[in-house]
């Protein structure tokens, strides 16, 4: 009984595929090759494409269709040099891209704007076959360029500057030293605290003198607190903790007291070991 049931399922799938392809054939007439030169017949209407090109680079075909249809094309550097011929007449736009790009990994982005009744194709990303499986959609802070973030450091909004500092320190790691020093002089408490917090979490070296100065003189309690906390592993900072006992904020004074207790315990342990 196994063979007949498999045959039945196979026949059903085949029938479904045939039905789908014949339905497609009713609504669209297509030939993917032929005529002479590049001849865009007309703009897309309701996501239907009419376009002809012969022996043209894939990249230029994609760009031309993208321009015509208002779809942003993002094509990987090593894609698009080969020449192909295509002919579409009132063909569904996404299906045209699917056929042209059948040998590549492709991401289609269907966006739904406020006034749209249904989602429409907004952008297409094209990668060499096999590369797409290692990619996934990412928020802008993950893909915006480092230069973009560097430009944001000059933004008037401290929230934007703080966000940019955060991302740049994370991206640049030990090379972010200069950036951190500059951010620690920012007018905004938010930017200074964010820079210091991220730098300390990233084990980025901040000069002792800078930390001492921030711990004792910064106008922000958050920055003074973070700087003093960063000095906790250096017994040479005892004098800073002692001065911080006179800090106007209770939380900094409490932290200073805790540090002094810690330094005392360390001294006791050292003298015992001698």
């Amino acid at each position, binding site marked *: 009984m196994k063979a007949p049931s498999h045959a039945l399922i196979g026949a059903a799938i085949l029938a479904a595929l045939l039905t789908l392809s014949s339905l497609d054939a009713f609504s669209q007439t297509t030939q993917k090759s032929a005529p002479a030169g590049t001849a865009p017949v007309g*703009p897309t209407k309701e996501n239907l494409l009419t376009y002809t090109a012969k022996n043209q680079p894939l990249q230029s075909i994609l760009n031309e269709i*993208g*321009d*015509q249809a*208002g779809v*942003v094309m993002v094509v990987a550097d090593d894609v698009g040099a080969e020449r192909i011929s295509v002919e579409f007449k009132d063909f569904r736009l996404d299906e045209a891209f699917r056929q042209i790009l059948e040998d590549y990994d492709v991401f289609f982005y269907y*966006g739904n704007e406020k006034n749209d009744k249904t989602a429409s194709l*907004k*952008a297409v990303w094209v990668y060499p076959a096999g590369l797409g499986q290692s990619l996934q959609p990412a*928020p*802008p*802070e993950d893909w*915006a360029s480092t230069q*973009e*973030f560097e430009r*944001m450091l000059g933004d008037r*909004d401290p*929230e*934007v500057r*703080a*966000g*940019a500092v*955060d*991302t740049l320190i994370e991206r640049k790691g030990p090379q972010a030293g200069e950036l951190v020093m500059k951010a620690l002089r920012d007018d905004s408490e*938010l930017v200074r*605290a*964010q820079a210091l*917090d991220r730098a300390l979490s990233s084990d980025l070296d901040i000069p002792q003198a800078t930390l001492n100065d921030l711990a004792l003189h910064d106008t922000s*309690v*958050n920055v003074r*607190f*973070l700087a003093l*906390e960063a000095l906790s592993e250096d017994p040479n900072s005892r004098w800073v903790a002692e001065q911080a006992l006179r800090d106007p*904020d209770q*939380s*900094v004074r*409490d*932290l200073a007291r*805790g540090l002094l207790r810690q330094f005392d315990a360390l001294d006791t342990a050292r003298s015992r070991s001698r």
Partner: protein
Amino acid sequence: MSSYLRKALVLIFAVLFVVAPVFEEMAQAHNRHSGNLRRLAANFRGFEGIASELQTIAPPSGTPTPGSGGAVIYQKTLYIPRDINVLFATVTAGANSHDGARLMMTCLIDGVPCNPGQIASGAPAGWVVLQRYADYNRFFTGFFTGDGGGAAGDLHNNSINYTWCTKLSKSWKWKPRTITIKLASFNLHGTILPFVTLEGVHFFIDGARLRGPNACTVDTTPRP
């Protein structure tokens, strides 16, 4: 439509839908880890032998403010990133109670109870009961010291774990916060040695940015 016009439209589209969101998102970039639970402190104590137990007979109290009384077993002042609006305090430990004493704990942030409410088990406001055991000595005649001197009223080496959440009020100034955790013994029957102790204790302080109805609020699912 001319090809120049079409190209201009595509460019405008790209700016609006691809580039613009970058700046929109970046305005909130310092919040980009907001949904994540961020560990702000991890500390431990009570691993240095028998003398390192955290022990008290101090009773809890709901007056003058919820979470009054008890003994401080953890106090830490921490920098809280500005986008965090909910703090979590977790205690996990081995616990002992003697003479039928109930082990209770509370958490305070800058002296304000993490949760000032009152639970069903008869704890004062702001406190939770984490260990409770009937003192069977009261129904027993004979001689039995148990394993802690409190005889059948002793309850030893139970794993306890509790987490409080607290929403940081918008009106609170952005500054370091002090988290305090207290331990208390509720000596219901007035016994002689109502010690409660913790050993091998871990404390974890976490923070996150959570939205409206999920930012440490009362759950309104009907009670069964």
